[in-house]
């Protein structure tokens, strides 16, 4: 992990979300599914964000402004600076056959980077509204559904290797359907590097730190 002061190179609206671009400086983009802790201006704690797009010397993060920290991040303007720490955690395993990406809502955030690394495999994306679904444009080869249709309804009988990120009910439904899926989970984190024990979730009866052992975990 590496801590850098990064300059914002752009921020654009994608439906209700903001795609925040920063100059990566010396930061390694890591593996899709890994995340960075982004300083939220004016807030005490940074916020964990997975890499949405990784270009030469640029990282982009897709952010849903749901609270004071994410709102502060979405308000950043070109030229402003913020501390960025990462890459952190464990990303998706990329050596897989017949990958199928599945994303829900803001959970599609790591999928554009993942799609690029996997050669643009098919994707199934679900959103709560057409407005939210504008973010689907970031993911190539995506089949899109909007509530009340759920991604699990579009899942083929033999889906191949599912790599997914989305709300907990979606991940739980996928886990039941596809036991070998790779699922990226989310939890409130204070530090992102194993110090605070705040992001522990229960796996097989044990509480484990999502930032160290995840955020991508095998379903089974």
């Amino acid at each position, binding site marked *: 992990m590496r801590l850098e002061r990064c300059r914002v190179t752009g921020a654009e609206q994608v439906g209700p979300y903001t795609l925040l671009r920063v100059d990566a400086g010396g930061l390694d983009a890591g593996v899709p599914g890994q995340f960075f802790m982004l300083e939220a201006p004016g807030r*005490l704690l940074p916020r964990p964000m997975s890499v949405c797009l990784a270009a030469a010397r640029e990282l982009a993060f897709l952010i849903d402004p749901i609270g004071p920290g994410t709102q502060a991040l979405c308000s950043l303007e070109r030229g402003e600076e913020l501390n960025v720490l990462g890459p952190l955690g464990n990303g998706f395993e990329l050596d897989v056959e017949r990958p199928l990406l599945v994303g829900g809502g803001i959970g599609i955030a790591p999928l554009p980077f993942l799609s690029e690394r996997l050669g643009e495999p098919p994707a199934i994306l679900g959103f709560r509204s057409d407005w939210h679904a504008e973010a689907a444009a970031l993911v190539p080869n995506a089949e899109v559904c909007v509530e009340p249709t759920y991604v699990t309804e579009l899942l083929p009988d033999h889906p191949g290797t599912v790599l997914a990120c989305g709300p907990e009910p979606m991940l739980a439904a996928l886990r039941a359907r596809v036991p070998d899926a790779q699922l990226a989970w989310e939890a*409130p984190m204070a530090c992102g*590097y194993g110090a605070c024990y705040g992001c522990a979730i229960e796996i097989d009866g044990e509480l484990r730190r999502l930032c160290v052992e995840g955020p991508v975990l095998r379903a089974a």
Partner: protein
Amino acid sequence: MLLNASGCLDALTAPEVARSLDGFVTKTITPEPRKGNPPVRIAETAAGMLNSIGLANPGRTCFLAETLPRLWELGVPLWVSVGGFSAADYAETCARLEGIEAVELNLSCPNVDEAPESAAAIVSACRAVTSLPLYAKLSPSTWDIAEAARAVEAAGADGLSLVNTLRGLALDERTLLPRLGRGTGGYSGPALKPVALAAVYACSAAVGIPIVGMGGVQSGLDALELIAAGASAVALGTILFSDPAAPARIRSELAVEAAARDLGHPLDARRAAHSSLQMGVS
């Protein structure tokens, strides 16, 4: 001397951060393994954060057999934080520790039920079984922390760690339900600094044993203020979550702040806050 506050750093996942400190304080070890409290465990508030981790740890046996040998390999002076639910719990763990820099007795976790014995009785039980330096970590949530400090000093404590978090509650603004899984949590961050300063100030006037000051330290000036209040070492907590490079930064800021006051060493500011009080008296 810069340490981490117990529970605010895992030296095994961030060894470079641990090595940037003068000593690493472990997460509190209890006799039995503890999963800790249910999620959600972290909530940011306007001027600080709440945690409800609940002393998650692998338990004494696993810590001694597996964690401690790996910590030794880091080459950082080790402080082991010891917790329990009775004086005997604390003493049995202390009796099995050797070769470390110091033991910090966590007598004040706001996230679990307390032992029935007094802090002094627990210190006394530990003193009987170990010659290691014993630091008593006290809660600021008491009417007279100086009295508690005098009691643990009399019971054989070699130092004090001041302060632990304050119990706090945050509600979800939409549902008005507690944001943390267990309801309340330990409140830390910048809001705790004046509380820590007051505790260090009061205890420094009351006892002669050294004090590790902690609570809301974000800068070298914050650290110098704790020293001025009476601390001879400073521990970093919440700041490590947002800035793992904080130890080096705070160390260099501390040197600058000391030099700006014509002090040869930051510790030359120790108890400076008490001098005006004495002048007022005389």
